[in-house]
């Protein structure tokens, strides 16, 4: 039975590494329209002014900790972001996380907070890329609304969105195969799948997709397929500035849009055919009645 007197004592104890939130001059970007959520981190971005009241229950602390200090999740995010620069050398692993922790002035043992296999690092990076993409698309949309730029055609839009997103992989492209294998580990699949689907959803949303029928599924499935295959092409592309990859992307998007158009044509042709048949039936039956009347 914990005594109630113990709780205030915890509040007074200054935290060794959690920084006072007011010290952070780097503002974290505001939460994007689509919340990216995965298992290990409840919320990705917390506005700093938010009081630390609803603390996750696993810490077991009575929420009495000073409201000015950043939460453990924010510290974990900082460590993972710092760890990214060590990925080209150490791969997506606990070693990279340990190096990242060291740059923040923490002991390398802090990497023990994460999984031994570097999963959290990859998921954090993917989530970060998706957020950056959303912001980019949001800004572009604003410019179009203000009339400063032309609205793009669907295939051009998709191509540019995917290219922007894939370019974020370039600094880590050598170790990306390792990242893909980590994302496919069974215990990571729920998280990685949800990140992938929310990214595709985002792109279609900004492309102006308003379908409410089966198209919604086909469009997302098609774009997911394009993204995945392009990533595979990119991983073994050695052309200057990945020209081959962008050309591949262009062709695939053109195919997809073509298919979409063809599907629409087939539908309208089908409808036209049916109408024609109905018209023919009505004509024939009227003529037959007229003949019988004579």
């Amino acid at each position, binding site marked *: 039975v914990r005594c109630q007197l113990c709780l205030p004592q915890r509040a007074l104890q200054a935290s060794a590494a*959690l920084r006072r939130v007011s010290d952070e001059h780097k503002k974290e970007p505001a939460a994007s329209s689509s919340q990216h959520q995965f298992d290990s981190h409840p919320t990705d971005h917390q506005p700093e002014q938010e009081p630390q009241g609803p603390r996750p229950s696993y810490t*077991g602390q009575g929420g009495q900790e000073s409201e000015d200090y950043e939460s453990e999740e924010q510290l974990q995010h900082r460590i993972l972001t710092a760890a990214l620069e060590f990925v080209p050398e150490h791969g997506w692993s606990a*070693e990279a996380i340990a190096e990242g922790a060291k740059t923040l002035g923490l002991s390398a*043992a*802090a*990497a*023990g907070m994460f999984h031994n296999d570097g999963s959290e690092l990859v998921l954090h990076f993917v989530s970060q890329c998706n957020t950056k993409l959303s912001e980019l698309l949001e800004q572009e949309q604003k410019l179009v609304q203000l009339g400063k730029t032309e609205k793009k055609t669907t295939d051009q839009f998709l191509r540019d969105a995917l290219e922007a997103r894939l370019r974020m992989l370039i600094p880590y492209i050598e170790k990306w195969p390792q990242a893909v294998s980590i994302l496919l580990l069974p215990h990571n699949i729920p998280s990685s799948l949800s990140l992938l689907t929310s990214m595709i959803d985002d792109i279609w949303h900004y492309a102006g997709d308003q379908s409410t029928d089966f198209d919604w599924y086909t469009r997302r499935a098609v774009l997911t397929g394009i993204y995945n295959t392009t990533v595979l092409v990119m991983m073994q592309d050695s052309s200057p500035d990945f020209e081959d990859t962008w050309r591949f992307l262009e062709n695939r998007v053109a195919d997809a849009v073509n298919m979409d158009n063809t599907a629409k044509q087939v539908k309208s042709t089908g409808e036209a055919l049916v109408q024609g048949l109905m018209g023919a039936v009505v004509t024939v039956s009227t003529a037959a009645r007229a003949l019988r009347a004579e």
Partner: protein
Amino acid sequence: VYQVFENVAKKYDIMNDSMSLGIHRVWKDVLLYKMNPSPGILLLDVAGGTGDIAFRFIDYVRSVRERQLRRKLKHHQNLSWQEIADSYQAETVKPLGDSQVVVCDINKEMLKVGRQKAQHLGYSEGLSWVVGNAEELPFGDEKFDVYTIAFGIRNVTHIDLVLQEAYRVLKPGGRFLCLEFSQVNNPLLSRLYDLYSFQIIPVLGEIIAGDWKSYQYLVESIRRFPPQEEFKAMIEDAGFLKVDYQNLTSGIVAIHSGFKL
């Protein structure tokens, strides 16, 4: 308590093996796997008398270091003979990559046994043996990356003082790891365990080590130790964050972990 361990020191390892049927090795291996130390980490092993954790730590760090050096070699396609020779040099000169273990125990006899074991098994580098009281450690603030206490914390008089000292000597970001007997959560297993503890272990103690009382004391101290959740709360009280525990062998033993953040 001191006298218990004075008697127990020499036969400590044998008794561990027979009491836990050798599983204690697995438990200690799991502790190291959870720690996942990298070269350069400084470990303080408290109540680590005969050095089991320390030796495992050294082995682990050594193999990680070898893997690191081999990976560096693989990266470089065209190495001159000089560079290859240099990397082999580096492997022998710094096999642990600056890692160190300090084994601290209140009992000189346990440390003596540990030192002999080290000599016997060939561990020479990176080890220090210090006599000290866990409630009042003879080290400065913020010196160590990892603090471990394996099967030692149930024997101390003031657990909260030990936890506070652990917090003090750890660097920011440092980790506290505790491997200790805990409450079994499975009711069937719990009854078998009780039977085993109270009937068989003291008998083994008498046969192997010639000491019934010490092992009676051991079993009782296990029963007196707070259960997992309570101990977790005590660790949080000392200021550790992200405190968590992992049950091994369905609760016979638990590893508690906390970070100084």
